[in-house]
């Protein structure tokens, strides 16, 4: 192999695939990064067997070839080099990468690229094209609701359903459920239902930050991997085994009280209450009071810490229905309010013991259900 490229480009490519390098692994190859010539480009790839990221770097290829080298060492070294031309070479039949840049010359011991885990590429499977910004928002609004412990592995993933031109992302951890729907620009004829690890979704979200072109999304034949193709980058997520709970029935269809609140004010009050709630089982109590004579409707946010003190704040609310009270975990409240991208949020409740529903006002694409905390009123 003989390849030349710019330090800046190589460093950027390595930073992208570096997110998929295994830090500690039983398979030593997964701490390596794969370098392979691919047409007029240099292909970099890394995998921790949960996600795989491939990135292409513009390069001048004089001779085809491939090798894997320890990712940390290689990345750190490339980052330390000046932004000049880097020449990479592997002597025939050798397992050593020779790197020259300016007045620096290095050799790095590598390994047989055929030992590297096979990284799938987007094949001929059914593909969908999704707007990157919409997908990023969708992921950000559901991924935090996925379970972080492994007692029920399906809940550590984001349920991803592509049906009739709509992509539905859902995550739940037993206490809350987040569902986001977004239209796709181009949809395959068939239905795709998979569970993508939340960690993989977070990586995808990160990769989508600067994307402008639609993201290509597909699954492999055995439905064990999902592939996302971006400009110059591909990410493969290893899917979670099992069946996601049927969450549709968990979303209350009716409510007795509906309060429309200013999102910023509500989040602000919740944060204040959380300071006190921290020392009191994280409980934040909400009282919804409909408009009465001479007064507009309001929401009272109340938190107390035993022996420390308490806080009570209120904000205006447009209330429909009966007065209501309900208590939530302060963290869950903040989590959902933080990711919403709208000016008003609606809170729907039925009773202090049934789930509360949060919906952005004016947008039909998101619903968030939170189990209340059982408290003495």
């Amino acid at each position, binding site marked *: 192999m003989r390849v030349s490229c710019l330090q800046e480009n190589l460093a950027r490519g390595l930073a992208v695939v570096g997110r998929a390098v295994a830090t500690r692994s039983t398979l*030593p190859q997964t701490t390596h990064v794969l370098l392979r010539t691919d047409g007029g480009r240099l292909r970099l790839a890394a995998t921790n067997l949960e996600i795989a990221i491939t990135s292409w770097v513009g390069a001048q290829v004089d001779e085809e070839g491939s090798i894997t080298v320890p990712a940390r060492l290689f990345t750190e070294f490339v980052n330390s080099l000046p932004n000049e031309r880097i020449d990479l070479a592997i002597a025939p039949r050798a397992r050593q990468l020779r790197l020259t840049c300016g007045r620096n010359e290095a050799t790095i011991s590598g390994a047989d690229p055929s*030992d590297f*885990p096979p990284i799938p590429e987007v094949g001929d499977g059914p593909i969908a094209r999704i707007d990157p910004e919409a997908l990023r928002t969708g992921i950000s609004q559901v991924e935090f609701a996925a379970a972080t412990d*492994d007692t029920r592995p399906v809940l*550590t993933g984001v349920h991803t359903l592509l049906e009739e031109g709509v992509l539905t992302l859902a995550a739940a951890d037993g206490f809350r459920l987040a569902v986001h729907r977004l239209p796709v620009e181009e949809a395959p004829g068939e239905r795709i239902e998979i569970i993508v690890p939340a960690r993989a979704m977070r990586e995808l979200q990160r990769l989508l930050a600067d994307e402008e072109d639609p993201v290509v999304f597909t699954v492999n034949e*055995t439905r*064990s991997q999902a592939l996302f193709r971006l400009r110059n980058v591909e990410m493969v997520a290893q899917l979670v*085994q099992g069946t996601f709970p049927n969450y549709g029935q968990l979303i209350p269809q009716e409510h007795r009280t509906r309060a429309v609140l200013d999102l910023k004010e509500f989040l602000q009050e919740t944060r204040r209450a959380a300071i006190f709630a921290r020392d009191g089982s994280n409980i934040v109590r909400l009282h919804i009071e409909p408009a009465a004579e001479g007064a507009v409707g309001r929401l009272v946010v109340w938190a107390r810490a035993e022996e420390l003190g308490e806080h009570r704040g209120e904000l205006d609310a447009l209330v429909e229905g009966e007065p209501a009270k309900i208590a939530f975990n302060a963290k869950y409240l903040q989590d959902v309010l933080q990711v919403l991208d709208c000016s008003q949020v609606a809170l729907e409740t039925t009773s202090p013991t049934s789930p509360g529903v949060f919906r952005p006002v004016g947008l039909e694409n998101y619903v968030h259900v939170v189990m209340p905390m059982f408290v003495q009123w």
Partner: protein
Amino acid sequence: MSDWGLIGQERAVRALSAALRQGRLPHAHLLVGPAHVGKGTLALRLAQAINCLAPVDERPCLACRQCRRIESFLHADLHLLTVEPGHREVRIAQVRELERALSLKPFEGRARVAIVDPADAMNLEAQNAFLKTLEEPPPDTVLVLVTCRETALLPTIRSRCRRIALGAVPVARLAAALAARGLSPEEAERLARWSEGRPGVALSLAADPELRQRREAEVERALSLPSLPLPRRLALADELAQLFTAPDGRDRQAEDAPPVPAPRFGERLWWVLDIWQSVWRDILLACAGPGAPIVNAERGAEIERLAAGLDTGRAAEALLAVWRVRRYLEDNVNPRLALEEMLLSLPEAGSPGRVA
């Protein structure tokens, strides 16, 4: 490959390949049997057979990409749960890590295969944590537990696995297999006999001339034990106790090397005790009368001479002492005390009243 490239163990191979062909392979297996008879190899072959790309009847072909990657422990769907270098046990954190890996769909093969070898190295917490996975493994997952100390596993673990027993291979069968692998008939016969029907031992002896020399030296030492004065026996016990707890050398392995199953704890001492046991059994057989097939036939004359100075009861006691120390060591008795006990109960040459 109908024998799965194994020496002997036809029954185990038949059972597994039939289950595979009929598509009703149990999800958890427990491979039991003495050390070095092929349990680890069988576990690997099963992983290969499950993922092999060849037609069903030819699996495992040992030639396709899947088979080769599994053979060298490079396959992403092969999970090895074993004692990590610097530890004595398989810990609960490792079990949890495995569970996490198994919760994802297979990466490059048909199914994920987790091999737990040695399964008896799992401590109590690890075994209990593993129960959940054994009870209800994710789809496309096969678990293979490998042990030569079945009783060290919880009954709840054992009852959740399909038990497959492997045994020593008849010496003639092993000799034929070794000859087929290119050894001269004499050498094949000798190594088959020395290894007492354990293919793993025979193959490592065949591969390593230095190991063969070390074995001969160890036989020599076993034969000279009766004439070893008591103070020297105590020193020897100390030396062997250190051998028992010495690191197994895996910490010096290259960082890039793929993981392999850890040897049993104290493997070097087990190796020595295996040889001593074979020598003392030879002596007991010689006491019982001429013509018995002895393992260390090359030293027949010395074995006869030692046997002549002992009655059968004394020889049996000596053999029992060697067996006993193995039990003690497995049960965590202080190694030096256990080894002293054994060495002091071995007969003394020329001591009146002790050697008949």
